[in-house]
């Protein structure tokens, strides 16, 4: 541990390759405790790859991933989850053949504190009341929006220090996007640190503290959410005009 | 190398091609030993029971062998066409198991029928060649012909359609490819190759019985393709030649020979996940030996 000023998560010059293709060409970023940082960019820019490298699903080819200042490059996924990094994957990936309650119970797989788990379960149901109504339903029978809520809740059940979300708005009706973003804002307000990957830059920047733009495996721009929202050139090429 | 072993290797290569053809359009069919057995039984029955075919010379006439091949091809072709319509609706491992079930049913029926000789089979099959080298030359010519056809197939429209189905059959269907017919074509071709191979094998083995087309053979022939590579016809040919020869070449290690054989088929896929012969390997080889590009073989690519 490098002292109190060390960021919660820091990437230094992170490089990731898939075979001969270089997906990340030296990424630097840091997330301070309590921050909501959003990672923007087009498909194939390397956003998901960044999350996968942090959670240990893929091994970086170079650079460092620091957690509380300590190197976690080579940790397997279940170890990073144990450290408090929870990765809510793209496309929701709920376990469709298990019930909502079982999905949530598996979210707390590494925890043994039964009482606290029960309390967290109630918190999730409070955050997304629709899940409570459907707790005994198979996850596969939920609508897209409900599945996204389940995926987020399931990640929360691990009681993460850092929640990483990969495109939570993907394929949702604009109305539901607003609902999910509101829930995320609520979690942020409660003090949860988040790293949010989004294509819907507008929606993400509305709730984020800071944003970074990834382009072809490198970070091309960054700044506070307000700066990015008002930056003219970014506005044109990344944020679109809604 | 001994001509007898070479002949067995060539037969292995042919069987490898028979498994390869459906696999080229993504169909894991293990029916090859069944069609092989049908071809063998046809040859065994005709050559031992049909005096008209025997000819007058000291050896059995080649023309009769060719006739047997034609009959075997017709029989396996028609059978494959009928069965294919039914089984090719299945996918992946389910198709594999359904075809294994067919092979087993065929084996049991052959075993139970009187005229196929029951457990003993049919023996005393006449010889069209007086040496193994004669067989090897004939089979080599047959293999060359079938390889040439496979090569042409891969470079033309039906071959492209097959490759497309293997990559993604829904997308292929959406490009106007009749996936059912194309799969059936591959299945029938596979059956023809296996049936014809069976005819040669029956003569070469002098005798024929139900055990020659069984479950073990299904898996072994699959190993030829997986080991050799399933992206180009050279793969199964290579796999068939090598894996047939290997147990024989390993005789000097004595009691350990099948253990070493097991190690080879265990380790092979670990080091060559795409099989030993891949299109990439061929490209690299080409660069190594600096062959000038041959435009026709490039399929007309500039």
């Amino acid at each position: 541990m490098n002292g109190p000023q060390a960021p919660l998560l820091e990437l230094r010059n992170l490089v990731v390759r898939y075979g001969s293709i270089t997906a990340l060409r030296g990424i630097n970023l840091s997330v301070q405790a309590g921050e909501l940082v959003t990672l923007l960019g087009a498909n194939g820019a390397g956003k998901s790859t960044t999350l996968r490298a942090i959670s240990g699903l893929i091994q970086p080819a170079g650079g460092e991933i620091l957690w509380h200042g300590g190197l976690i490059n080579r940790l397997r996924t279940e170890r990073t989850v144990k450290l408090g990094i929870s990765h809510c994957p793209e496309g929701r990936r709920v376990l469709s053949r298990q019930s909502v309650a079982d999905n949530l119970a598996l979210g707390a797989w590494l925890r043994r504190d039964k009482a606290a788990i029960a309390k967290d379960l109630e918190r999730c149901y409070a955050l997304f009341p629709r899940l409570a109504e459907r707790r005994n339903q198979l996850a596969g029978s939920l609508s897209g929006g409900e599945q996204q809520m389940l995926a987020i809740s399931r990640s929360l059940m691990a009681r993460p220090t850092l929640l990483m979300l990969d495109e939570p708005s993907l394929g949702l009706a604009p109305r539901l996007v607003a609902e999910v973003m509101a829930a995320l804002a609520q979690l942020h307000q409660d003090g949860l640190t988040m790293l949010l990957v989004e294509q819907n830059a507008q929606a993400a920047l509305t709730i984020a503290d800071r944003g970074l733009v990834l382009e072809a495996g490198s970070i091309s721009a960054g700044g506070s959410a307000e700066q990015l929202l008002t930056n003219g050139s970014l506005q044109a090429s990344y944020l679109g005009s809604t | 190398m001994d001509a007898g072993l070479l002949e067995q290797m060539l037969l292995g290569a042919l069987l490898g091609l028979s498994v390869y053809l459906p696999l080229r359009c993504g169909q894991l069919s293990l029916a090859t030993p069944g069609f092989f057995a049908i071809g063998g039984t046809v040859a065994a029955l005709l050559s031992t029971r049909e005096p008209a075919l025997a000819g007058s010379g000291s050896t059995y006439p080649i023309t009769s062998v060719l006739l047997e091949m034609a009959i075997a091809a017709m029989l396996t072709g028609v059978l494959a066409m009928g069965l294919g319509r039914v089984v090719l609706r299945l996918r992946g491992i389910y198709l594999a198991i359904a075809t294994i079930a067919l092979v087993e049913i065929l084996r049991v029926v052959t075993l139970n029928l009187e005229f196929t000789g029951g457990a003993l089979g049919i023996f005393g099959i006449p010889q069209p060649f007086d040496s193994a080298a004669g067989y090897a030359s004939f089979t080599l010519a047959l293999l060359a012909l079938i390889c040439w056809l496979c090569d042409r197939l891969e470079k033309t429209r039906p071959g492209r359609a097959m490759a497309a189905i293997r990559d993604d059959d829904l997308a292929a269907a959406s490009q106007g490819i009749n996936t059912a017919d194309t799969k059936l074509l591959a299945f029938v071709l596979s059956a023809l190759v296996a049936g014809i191979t069976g005819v040669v094998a029956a003569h070469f083995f002098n005798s024929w019985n139900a055990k020659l087309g069984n479950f073990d053979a299904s898996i072994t022939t699959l190993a030829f393709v997986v080991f050799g590579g399933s992206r180009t016809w050279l793969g199964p040919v290579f796999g068939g030649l090598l894996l047939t020869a290997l147990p024989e070449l390993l005789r000097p290690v004595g009691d350990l020979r099948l253990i070493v054989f097991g190690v080879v088929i265990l380790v092979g896929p670990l080091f060559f996940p795409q099989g030993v012969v891949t299109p990439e390997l061929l490209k690299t080889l080409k660069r190594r030996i600096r062959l000038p590009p041959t435009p026709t073989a490039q399929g007309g690519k500039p």
Partner: protein
Amino acid sequence: METLLQVLFNGLSVGAVYALFALGYTLVFSVLGVINFAHGAIFTLGAYFTYLLIGGAVGANGLLAGLQLPFALPFWLALPLAGVAAAALALMVERIAFRPLRDRGSDPLLALITSLGAGVILVNLIQLLVGAESYSIPVGTLGSLPAALSIAGAKVRSVQVILLAIAGLLLAALSLWIDGSRSGKALQAVSEDPITAQLLGINSTRMIQIAFGISGFLAGMTGGLVGLSVSIAGPYFGIGYGLKGLGVLVLGGLGSVPGAVLGGLIIGLAEACVPADLSGYKDAVSFGLLFLVLLIRPQGLLGRPQSSKV
């Protein structure tokens, strides 16, 4: 005329073995989506382990000729221990033939061949070490139990009743574990989506090992039990079950635990129903049945339909 009850007994006595065999197959299939062709060899080794643990001696033809353990365990202790040894062996097979492929994300088809290779190695290793001769567990091993039971005129060997009972017990235990326990749910999670399971902190590798371990344990126990019922017929003892087990597995539905049991019992019963005059067609009947079921229900009786998302 055979009574219906007798046919039922005959079918169940074979079917129970098929079911037990297929249970181990299906467990590995459910998590990895591949068939472990070394399963038959592990079953065989389970039988040999049981034989050795009850104090049996190795014959004259292998490298281990004359070997005999310095102790002789009662059968009831030897059987689960043989299961454990077989489980250890299954873990080795997983390590050597499956994990390297998984680490490279290779085509699952390759695992068919690597596990086949592992099976070939094991079978020939057995032959090298203990020879090809048959070994038997002594008839009196079950103590004072009568050799056969007679119920309403129908007869069944006691060994088969025990086999059936153990098959039932193991099935119940396995179902309870998979559907009722936390780790069972985690196993299901791995089988549905290994990546997500990892993201939840589930160690996929560990769960796959557990599946292989249980599968090997079941195979070893089954091998020992069948060895109690019939002689251990040399290194190829389990290979015959390999093919039949495959049929059972697919008939019941790949990856379905109750399916494996249902498939085993159905094939056992179907074979028992073949009249004496046609008994030569027994195998054709079971595979014909499998073939028909596949055509009508391509996913097997209790399997989940394959779907490809567009």
